[in-house]
């Protein structure tokens, strides 16, 4: 389960629309709490893929992830997952995503159809690497009513 405020979901959607037709990506920063992830902010990353491949691939370089982790640690937080967009494709992780995932992290995928953010879903990989399971997205109490 992932707890994330509406405003952060809006940021992810907006990032996906901004980078369309390319894939966008970013970090989810927050805390692991009893098997649950609580997101307190998103951290946009520039897609490291070259032009051609950006339509269907994203890459967050380890240096960037380390920078993000350092940023999180300074605030007493962790990287709890990642988000990326699927331009003109479903909000479902691909086999490629599965091959490149680690357990526990949340992987939020937002479908961007013809430039407009549509379906947004969150996934967590099964510990034996066999599949992704969709996880429930619950609004964060901090985000409730925050317009």
């Amino acid at each position, binding site marked *: 389960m992932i707890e994330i405020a509406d405003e952060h979901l809006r940021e992810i959607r907006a990032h996906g629309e901004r980078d369309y*037709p390319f*894939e966008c*990506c970013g970090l989810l920063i927050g805390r*692991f709490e009893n098997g649950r992830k609580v997101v307190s902010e998103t951290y946009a990353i520039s897609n*490291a*893929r*070259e032009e*051609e*491949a950006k*339509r*269907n*691939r*994203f*890459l*967050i*370089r*380890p240096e960037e*992830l*380390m920078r993000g982790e350092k940023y999180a640690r300074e605030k007493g937080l*962790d*990287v*709890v997952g*990642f988000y*990326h967009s*699927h*331009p*003109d*494709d*479903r909000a*479902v*992780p*691909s*086999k*490629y*995503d599965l*091959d*490149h*995932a*680690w*357990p*526990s*992290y949340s*992987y939020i995928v937002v479908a961007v159809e013809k430039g407009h953010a549509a379906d947004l879903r969150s996934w967590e990989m099964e*510990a*034996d*690497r066999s599949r992704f399971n969709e996880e429930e997205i619950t609004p964060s109490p901090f985000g409730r009513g925050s317009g």
Partner: protein
Amino acid sequence: MPVTVTIPTPLRQFADGQSEIQIDARTAGEALDKLTSTHTELRRHLFNDQNALRNFVNVYVNDEDIRHANGPDTPVNEGDTILIVPSIAGGAAVLDEIAGKDAGGPQAGMPALPMLSNEEVARYSRHLIMPEVGMTGQRKLKAASVLMIGTGGLGAPLGMYLAAAGVGRLGLVDFDVVDASNLQRQIIHGTKDVGRPKIASARDRIEDINPHVEIETHDTKLTSANALNLFVNYDVIVDGTDNFPTRYLVNDACVLTGKPNVYGSIFRFEGQASVFWAERGPCYRCLYPEPPPPGLVPSCAEGGVLGVLPGIIGTIQATETIKIILGAPDIMVNRLLLFDAWRMRFRELKLRKNPDCPVCGVNPTIKELIDYEEFCGITQQPETKPTMEEITATELKQRLDQGDDIQIIDVREPHEYEIGAIPNSKLIPLGQVLNRMNEIDPGRETVMHCKMGGRSAKAIEALQRAGFPGHLINLKGGITAWSNEVDPSVPKY
């Protein structure tokens, strides 16, 4: 020498919750081996099946990436820190294996796409100047592998265009031999090839079109025993089969191996095409959960097919295959294209994934390949009932020659009768047999025939059920056997 390995947060659950572990090791590789032999669950997230570090897993010794040092042999000294950091990669479900090999690979440790020679650049120039293909796309095509099931009507244009387009590796599965009746549509084979195995003839033609293509021939029938092992070695599977058991087999094997299934089928003047790709949309079973009862849908051999039709459907399949490899946005997933050549109309149906689909649904019941002949209801069904009396063409000729009084009823269609007929036979098409029963003399011995013996057996059953009192005999193998055994001047079709 003790070094400290820092365990990333999501993997701590596999290391008893520890964030740092002290290990005695001389190299980074040794440290990781020791770490994962103590905490075995960690291993699968760090190493792949070939025991190499997963290509998105990066290992740092004191802030230096070991890829830039000596890899796993990078020495470590007392007090060093080993850091495991993923580079987070992912993306939409375009052809994963191929698109993974893109030019940005090296940072993530992925194999790079193959380069093109100057000769290849010249050959593919009309592709290269389009941004949708370009150099990267053409290299993706070269990196790609496609398995074609069948080298017949659909396989002919498919094989030729995929080869011409520069697909790097083409697998051909067929066990059939070129027959004269194939040449009306199977343009990958020529008149000189009649009698040769189709895969041999197809190989010659493809090599002539593009010697840069690697061809793998599989001279075998596709079966539940060999399909999965064949499919895993290719990126895209193209279904050019002409029968239901193989079509369901191709579908299920594609779902189980996660491969896109580029589907096409043809009959008379009508064709269908789609891309069944369970990861992204419906599979063939979502569209057709059950096969039609055996005999309801005739094959092309029985029903005929316009020779140009597989050319149109096969080239649509070739187009979709190339688009999948390139990662094009509008692949024919979720859509079924219907084509009617006689009216020259294309129509499109929206398809939806069936959540209850037995093979690709939420709770699949088919988890391995089954017996598809049985599934389609065509296992060991005798052509004719054992009680039915039969005569061979040779015996019939002998009896006619010795002057026996036999009437011959031909139950084929008039346009078939025009192609050739047995002398002194009377034409009563199957559909009219019962209405015209009175035209058959019950007092004379009667031999009934059709093209192969199937329809005449049905006619005899129908007449017997209707109470026809005469003596009815089926001509075994129909007029085809007559042509083979008695009179080769009667053309076979």
